């Protein structure tokens, strides 16, 4: 009796094939081109990997698929790590993918390009989406990690530039799981619940992976939707995220964002003092012209104006001088040094200060006629000379005329 050949049932043989294949190929790397890519509503992804001679069916289950940053597409050359699995019911085998990376380009780089292209096609990087930053924001919202380097830098710069500005921090997760939701929620919070004038989003430097949340569609769309002007400040100078590109303003670092958002108290006060000094100069000029006009009137006795009118004008001039002195006494706190410099400039504009610098005014005594020329005095005449702090009466001993014109100094 010939021995009966060993016969397997379909199930048994399939089981053996399954065991053989799955044990031999439980962790393999394979490179090929994606075709027939299909992202099923269940979340699983099905596709084929091919080269010019063969085709391999592949599946990527939802949990692994969700870790993909970029979107796999037909024609993409990819490297896959996975295991071979035999599906007994259909008698076929497929590669179950654990990792899928593009070939020739980093996965994050590819994802960045894909999202960039998508958003460009929608016109979302256009300048017309940009809002101007308010010049004098008094309340600023910041979406970042409360323990990061970024918030420390922002606080430091902001305190230095202007402690009167209020900072409100929305503590966000800025990297890893949940970061994109957290940052987007912060932007939405300020838009809906708070009356800040500027929003800053950002974080300190890190790898492309660390900064990734700022390249996600979720954050980019939240930035675009913000009605409040927003500054994006992610990483260092060289890191440019998609959030940076859609934000109303991009700052190269978080410190730079604070410089942009927080207006400088010192610059502002410098502008204020510039105006005041300008006004004082104009007023002094006007007062001096008025005083000259009064003196001209007094010097012309033929023109008898009612004295009250003259006194009124004199009073106006006196008020002005008092003002200048008061201004000098104002206490401007921390800015005292700089300010007192400015204010003492105001005082030097005052006619009183001219006397303080060593000049004096002489009048004929006792008639009080102002001496504007040496020709008004003769030897033996008495003069009253007013100094900054008093006056003296003297007698003219000798007279020396000079050709120089315009000199009004009496000796």
């Amino acid at each position, binding site marked *: 009796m010939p021995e009966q050949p060993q016969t397997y049932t379909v199930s048994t043989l399939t089981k053996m094939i399954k065991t053989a294949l799955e044990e031999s190929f439980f962790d393999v790397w394979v490179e090929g081109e994606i075709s027939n890519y299909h992202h099923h509503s269940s979340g699983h992804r099905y596709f084929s990997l091919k080269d010019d001679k063969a085709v391999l069916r592949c599946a990527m289950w939802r949990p692994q698929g969700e870790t993909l940053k970029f979107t796999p597409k037909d024609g993409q050359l990819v490297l896959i790590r996975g295991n071979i699995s035999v599906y007994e019911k259909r008698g076929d085998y497929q590669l179950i993918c654990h990792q899928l990376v593009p070939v020739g380009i980093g996965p994050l780089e590819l994802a960045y390009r894909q999202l960039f292209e998508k958003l460009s096609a929608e016109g979302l990087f256009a300048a017309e989406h940009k809002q101007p930053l308010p010049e004098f924001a008094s309340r600023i919202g910041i979406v970042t990690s409360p323990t*990061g380097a970024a918030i420390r830098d922002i*606080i430091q710069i902001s305190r230095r530039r202007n402690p009167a500005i209020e900072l409100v921090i929305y503590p966000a997760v800025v990297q890893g799981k949940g970061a994109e939701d957290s940052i987007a929620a912060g932007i939405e*919070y300020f838009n809906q619940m708070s009356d800040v004038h500027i929003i800053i989003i950002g974080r*300190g430097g890190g790898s492309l992976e660390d900064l990734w949340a700022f390249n996600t569609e979720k954050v980019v769309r939240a930035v675009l939707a913000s009605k409040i002007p927003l500054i994006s400040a992610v990483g260092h100078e060289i890191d440019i995220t998609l959030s940076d590109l859609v934000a109303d303003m991009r700052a190269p670092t978080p410190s730079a964002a604070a410089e942009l958002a927080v207006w400088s108290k010192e610059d502002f006060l410098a502008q204020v003092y510039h*105006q*005041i000094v300008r006004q004082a100069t104009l007023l002094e000029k*006007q007062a001096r012209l008025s005083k000259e006009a009064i003196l001209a009137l007094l010097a012309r006795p033929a023109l008898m104006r009612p004295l009250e009118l003259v006194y009124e004008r004199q009073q106006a001039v006196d008020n002005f001088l008092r003002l200048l002195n008061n201004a000098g006494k104002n206490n*401007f706190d921390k800015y005292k040094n700089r300010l007192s410099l400015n204010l003492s400039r105001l005082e030097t504009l005052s006619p009183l200060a001219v006397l303080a610098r060593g000049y004096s005014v002489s009048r004929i005594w006792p008639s009080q006629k102002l001496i504007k020329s040496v020709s008004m005095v003769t030897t033996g005449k008495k003069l009253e000379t007013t100094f900054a702090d008093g006056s003296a009466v003297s007698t003219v001993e000798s007279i020396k005329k000079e050709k120089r014109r315009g000199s009004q100094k009496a000796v």
Partner: protein
Amino acid sequence: MAAKKQYKDFESALKRLEEITELMESGDVSLEASIDLYTEGLDIAKYCNKKLTEAEKKIKIIKEKGGLLVEQEFGESETKSETN
């Protein structure tokens, strides 16, 4: 003397100051009016200076409290635990 005005913000205060300078530069105002304008200018400068030097605003942080998000004072020491 000029009536005391309240400026709702720094922007309008600076704007008024610039306006005053322009008025005085125009040469169309009397000495008395100039003095009033200058007094107003000084008042604005003092107001701005006072507002800017007296107020040191607190830093706030959003926290969840009983299911609501509220603003609380932020201690700067809270930033010192780690870096990223």
